[in-house]
């Protein structure tokens, strides 16, 4: 009896929807409309993916265009009759992996470069971001509000403006891949910092630290055994966000790219402009395959951090 009333109070405190609030016809109607719109949006998001999945493996009679004579094409071991067999297969069968193989041959380096960029971004944003977030939440110092403001600045300024500013201001970095990395870091840092600061604000880590210090833990011990274990989840969510954003970053990195170092979205732009529908679809599908695991993992590990960090993406 008492447990029942306690649970009722708990439910009321949590602000749970009462069944009575959902029974009127108008509310039901509005909820159904919301459901319909949501399903339509999900369909709208998924249908182009499905179309490009289909496009990436269909055979094409419209061969012999630029799609076959890309720079990587000659470098293959398949020569003479092998190439002929491949072409015949692509023109007559129903499904082919030719387009995927083409993309890997021509843009393989680009894919590796983008993955490298994403991983390095994750490492650096974790190192700089976690340290800075800790300092921002733990200590009070002059210019704190300004730092917090400026970290978030890239979220609201166009990537192309940042790219042009970087190109002009850092001409020595221009030929290297570091300038692309800098662009990616600028746009991914806010996500890491938001995820970590939100977690740090959600529990009283100072009290934990004090408890550890009273037991004689040094600063390093407190960091390694008290603070960082508590931040594990936030860092994971932040890293996945950084990885996903870095993988798809185009606005800033398109102008920062050099002919040698290209990020994969720029390669995608190349395929859209130069190649066939099939090749473009295959390139897009490869991007999805790289991206989807990170996004799905994000939904399953991400709780409150994701909701908070997702604001103002």
């Amino acid at each position, binding site marked *: 009896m008492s447990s029942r009333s306690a649970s009722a109070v708990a439910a*009321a405190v949590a*602000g749970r*929807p009462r069944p009575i*609030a959902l029974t009127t016809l108008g509310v039901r109607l509005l*909820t159904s*409309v*919301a*459901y319909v719109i*949501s399903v339509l*949006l*999900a369909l709208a*998001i998924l*249908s*182009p993916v499905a*179309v490009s999945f289909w496009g990436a493996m269909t055979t094409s009679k419209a061969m012999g265009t630029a799609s076959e004579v890309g720079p990587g094409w000659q470098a293959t071991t398949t020569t003479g009759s092998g190439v002929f067999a491949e072409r015949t297969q692509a023109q007559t069968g129903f499904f082919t992996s030719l387009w995927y193989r083409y993309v890997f041959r021509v843009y393989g380096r680009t894919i590796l470069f983008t993955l490298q960029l994403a991983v390095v971004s994750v490492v650096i944003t974790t190192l*700089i*971001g976690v*340290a*800075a977030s800790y300092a*921002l939440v733990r*200590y*009070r*110092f002059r210019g704190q509000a300004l*730092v*917090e403001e400026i*970290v978030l*600045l*890239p979220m*609201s*300024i*166009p990537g*192309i*403006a940042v790219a*042009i*500013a*970087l*190109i*002009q*201001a*850092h001409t020595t970095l221009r030929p290297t891949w570091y300038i692309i990395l800098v662009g990616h*870091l*600028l746009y991914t840092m806010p996500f890491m910092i938001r995820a970590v*600061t939100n977690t740090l604000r959600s529990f009283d880590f100072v009290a934990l*630290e004090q408890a550890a210090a009273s037991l004689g833990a040094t600063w390093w011990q407190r960091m390694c055994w008290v603070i960082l274990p508590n931040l594990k989840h936030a860092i994971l969510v932040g890293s996945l966000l950084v990885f996903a*954003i870095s*993988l*798809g970053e*185009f*606005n800033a990195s398109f102008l920062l790219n050099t002919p040698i170092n290209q990020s994969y*979205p720029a390669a*995608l*732009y190349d395929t*859209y402009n130069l190649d066939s529908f099939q090749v*473009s679809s295959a390139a897009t599908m490869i991007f999805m395959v790289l991206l989807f695991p990170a*996004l799905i993992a994000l*939904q399953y590990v991400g709780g409150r951090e994701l*909701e908070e960090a*997702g604001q*103002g*993406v």
Partner: protein
Amino acid sequence: MKTRASGAVLVLPLVVFLVVFLLYPLCYLAANSLVPGGGVLEGRTKQVGGWSAGQWLRTVTVENYVKLFGDGYYLSSLFHSVVLSLAVAIGSVILCIAPAWVLVRTQFPGKRLFRAVLTIPMAFSGVIVGFMIVIMLGRWGAIPAVLHWLTGEAYLSMTAYTLSGLVVAYVYFEIPRATLTLEAAIRKFDFDLDAAARSLGATLWQRLWYVLVPLLLPAIISTVALAFAVSMGSFGVALIIAKKFNLLPVDIFLEITGYANFEFASALCVVMLVITLTTNLYLRRIGEKRYVFKER
């Protein structure tokens, strides 16, 4: 335990990074926008060697801005960009209230998967969205093809290259941003207020209009501001499908790749920066009563 201010040095790497790679380049951009344009069409070439402060003071001029605001072409692309971004911002917010509501207020199996699907476009670069709109609504996209199969007439063909196609494409990549922001706002909404209004005899319309909308308005405004800024700066989509419209980001891109006129491109960037930053700093601050980093 005393708060040691010396611990604040942990923030130093971030500060150095931001100053070197964000603030300094942006200042450089602003300074360079005041230098006479060196584009190939003007027949000028850049002076050899870097420029010093004295040299900059001697050459400083507002020539680029005069050209920008005196030219109908650039004014029209500015106008197109602002109108398109506003339409997209408002449209995406209106659309995304539905999934945000569904995610907060209802329970159903596969909710996480549904949420994952909605966040897919977050990491899409604009070019991918451009490609997708072309394969769906292009000359022979999937939708016209299906309509042709059903009715014998390829309706909606070539929609991708029109203004409505651009709006659809932009809304596509605003969906996750708008949904996540609105979802957080609805989650914070105190539904006891709604129940109170209902117990006082408010009709559905009154509950929506006098309780829900005013309290969600800050979040809605900040979402609009955010979506506006993102749409202003995104040029991947426009690069693929904006064949009939001149948009500001595309103009900047062409100014760099076509004419190597970095100075004029800088001026265009500064104008774009001013627009997005004002919307964000003011509209968002009005909307978001609380500040992201402050304790609540």
